């Protein structure tokens, strides 16, 4: 694949990928890392892309979702490992990397506190419920498209959304107590 062809694809989908990544990590540094890896993978695997199975947009969405979830898992593992090494090197005053600094550029200051709490709860959800919520409520994708991206049925997506909302409501009730 030629670089000009790739850069045309990049130009069309860069904002979509970046905003999706922000939905998962809520800070610009991590979203940039994720977006970079998404497009590198797109470049490496475009020869394998089958236009019959999914649209290019859906295919790139899938890469972005998987890359976001992998990034989060890797960062949690790194934090766990950092905690263990800190036990053996207590003299080090270096702060451990913050897994989750809230720095979403699309959130106004007056909404920050409210959304920071909401995202903290969304981030606790299982991956599939979280993905379904992000794609429908933040990315505003119709359920049919979400089902294609997640390679599930529409009913399965509805069920994930329902369970996700119930889990969030339950957590909010706990916090209000």
């Amino acid at each position, binding site marked *: 694949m030629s*670089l000009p062809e790739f850069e045309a694809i990049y130009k069309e989908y*860069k904002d979509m990928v970046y905003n999706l990544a922000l939905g998962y990590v809520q800070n610009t540094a991590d979203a*940039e890392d994720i*977006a970079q890896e998404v497009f590198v993978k797109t470049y490496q695997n475009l020869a394998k892309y089958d236009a019959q199975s999914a649209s290019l947009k859906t295919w790139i969405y899938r890469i972005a979702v998987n890359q976001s979830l992998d990034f989060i898992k890797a960062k949690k593992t790194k934090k766990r490992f950092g905690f263990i090494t800190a036990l053996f090197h207590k003299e080090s005053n270096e702060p451990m990397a913050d897994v989750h600094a809230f720095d979403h550029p*699309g959130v*106004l200051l007056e909404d920050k506190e409210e959304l920071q709490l*909401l995202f903290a709860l969304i981030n606790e959800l299982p991956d599939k419920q979280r993905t379904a919520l992000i794609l429908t*409520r933040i990315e505003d994708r119709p359920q049919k498209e979400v089902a294609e991206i997640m390679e599930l049925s529409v009913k399965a997506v509805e069920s994930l959304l329902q369970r996700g909302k119930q889990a969030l409501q339950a957590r909010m009730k706990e916090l209000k107590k």
Partner: protein
Amino acid sequence: MKELESLSKINKVEAPPFLLTRIRARIASLNEAAPVQWKWALAATALLVFALNAAAILKTEIKNDRPEPGLEQVIKGMNLSPSNGLYDE
């Protein structure tokens, strides 16, 4: 769920312009990585060949230092000396 409606307050943002520069650099490094890997593979192969040769040479030398058991008996029986000296002193 009322609280989820707050998610609609999130605005879409543009990806930073330097992101493409980073991606280009990553793709360029992927293309460069292959020759570096070949160098490592070549070095590892050379090391392996050297190690095998050294082992073969050492094994041959050890074998040459010790005469065969049957030959040892003949040497002893005929009072022959393994050294190159002509006379026993």
